[in-house]
């Protein structure tokens, strides 16, 4: 399967199943599109007619392009066949280790963000904090179920995890204390709204957290419109100086300034560039996840603007790189040579199998977006996973489980997408959240174009 597209002056051909990417001129672009549909003679005739005003396009030239295509096909870089289907089901079904937990250390929040999928941190339940005992047991549960996996990830999530900061520190200390003996390497992440950041948080997180995710929606008016405190006051002025200090002292350690865009700020690049103006370079901006009935929900009419925004962002990033002032956008970070292997690409996000969310009382859910939905309770950290029926649903949830993905060129980049988004959009974890697909495909096109442009710069 091929995907051909034109963007920012580049003609790009993506060979889906080998992962090969080619940048071609107009003639080669057209010949590749015709190659499987028409005979050599028909292609030559059609091309000579189409390019009759271009003296460089001769019969020999067209024949050379066809020879090049044959060479690429023979070397497995063009028109490669799909041979991964059985692999997908076998791999995920046999893979029973857990390697990542999202610890909901606080089902409460000091902000009252309108669009929060966790309902102001409570996940449709009571306000509650995780105890150290539960956190410790969660770490033990992860170690016990991680098999030979060395790298284990623990994300401190909420609600707002800094509202239970002492317990976070205790859990980290406990995990570090058993790391060597258990031959594990813990990578901690903290996702925070920033309100409670102080010197202690900065020092500890910069020592222990592999990554920190700092929530900021961009421009003050955009951020304050939805990210308000309990009294309805915007949080921008409180958190921005804290984030700046946090990042300044973080050195080379990973962080993301992470925003959410909604129907209210479809021109979201203004918010991304605002983040950059504030001195941040590692940026992420996500489409809002909400009911279509919410006033800020993205609509199909927004799509052309969003596509244009993604393109604008990619072009601006190329420009900033040329000027020696690069910024990183999470969704454009594709490592073409060091990216995921085919197993990763076909097995899905890992929710419910290798990744689970733990509530403050130790209940397990397939991921943070299923917390609060009793149907998706998997079990608990004390007795393990007992809802095998639901877990099996997730085990079989991969890119090949979705009929809609069958002919999609982007399937080895998204791996079928987010199970929670699919569930909320269609009622099934193996459904497809089509709106998300549209945005995802656009982002991948832009990300690949940026690589092509970078190769061009070099």
């Amino acid at each position, binding site marked *: 399967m091929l995907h051909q597209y034109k963007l920012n002056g580049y003609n790009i051909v993506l060979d889906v*199943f080998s992962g090969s990417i080619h940048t071609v001129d107009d003639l080669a672009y057209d010949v590749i599109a015709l190659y499987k549909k028409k005979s050599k003679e028909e292609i030559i005739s059609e091309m000579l007619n189409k390019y009759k005003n271009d003296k460089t396009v001769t019969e020999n030239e067209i024949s050379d392009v066809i020879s090049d295509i044959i060479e690429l096909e023979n070397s497995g870089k063009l028109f490669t066949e799909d041979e991964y289907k059985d692999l997908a089901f076998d791999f995920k079904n046999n893979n029973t280790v857990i390697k990542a937990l999202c610890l909901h250390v606080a089902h409460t929040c000091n902000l009252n963000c309108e669009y929060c999928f966790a309902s102001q941190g409570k996940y449709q339940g009571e306000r509650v904090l995780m105890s150290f005992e539960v956190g410790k047991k969660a770490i033990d549960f992860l170690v016990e179920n991680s098999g030979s996996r060395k790298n284990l990830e623990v994300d401190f999530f909420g609600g707002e995890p800094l509202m239970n900061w002492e317990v976070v520190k205790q859990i980290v200390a406990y995990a570090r204390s058993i790391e060597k003996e258990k031959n594990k390497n813990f990578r901690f992440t903290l996702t925070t709204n920033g309100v409670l950041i102080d010197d202690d948080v900065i020092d500890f997180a910069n020592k222990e957290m592999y990554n920190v995710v700092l929530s900021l929606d961009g421009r003050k008016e955009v951020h304050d419109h939805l990210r308000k405190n309990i009294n309805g006051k915007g949080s921008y002025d409180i958190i921005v100086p804290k984030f700046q200090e946090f990042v300044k002292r973080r050195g080379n350690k990973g962080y993301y300034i992470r925003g959410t865009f909604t129907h209210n700020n479809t021109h979201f690049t203004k918010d991304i560039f605002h983040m950059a103006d504030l001195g941040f370079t590692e940026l992420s901006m996500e489409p809002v996840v909400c009911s279509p009935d919410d006033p800020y929900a993205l609509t199909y009419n927004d799509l052309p603007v969003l596509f244009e925004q993604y393109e604008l962002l990619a072009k601006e990033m190329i420009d900033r790189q040329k000027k020696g002032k690069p910024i990183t956008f999470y969704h454009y970070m594709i490592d*073409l040579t060091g*990216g995921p292997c085919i197993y990763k690409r076909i097995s899905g996000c890992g929710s419910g199998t290798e990744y689970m969310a733990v509530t403050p009382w130790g209940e397990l859910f397939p991921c943070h*977006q299923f917390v609060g939905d009793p149907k998706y309770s998997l079990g608990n950290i004390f007795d393990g996973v007992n809802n095998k029926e639901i877990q099996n649903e997730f085990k079989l949830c991969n890119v090949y489980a979705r009929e809609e993905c069958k002919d999609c060129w982007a399937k080895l980049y998204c791996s079928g997408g987010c199970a929670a988004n699919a569930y909320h959009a269609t009622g099934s974890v193996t459904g497809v959240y089509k709106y998300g697909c549209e945005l*995802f495909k656009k982002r991948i096109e832009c990300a690949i174009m940026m690589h092509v442009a970078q190769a061009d710069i070099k």
Partner: protein
Amino acid sequence: MKRIQTIETRNLKASKKTGGCGECQTSCQSACKTSCGVANQQCEKYLEKNK
């Protein structure tokens, strides 16, 4: 090739033999938490090799 340039990429078919160690980061655990894919994950073996 005069009219076709190939960008260096990981050979996915070859990774059938070399991949699958599972040490890589879980997709949703990094920055997005709401709209994940796998494209922007890095191969742990590759990272280790190129340290």
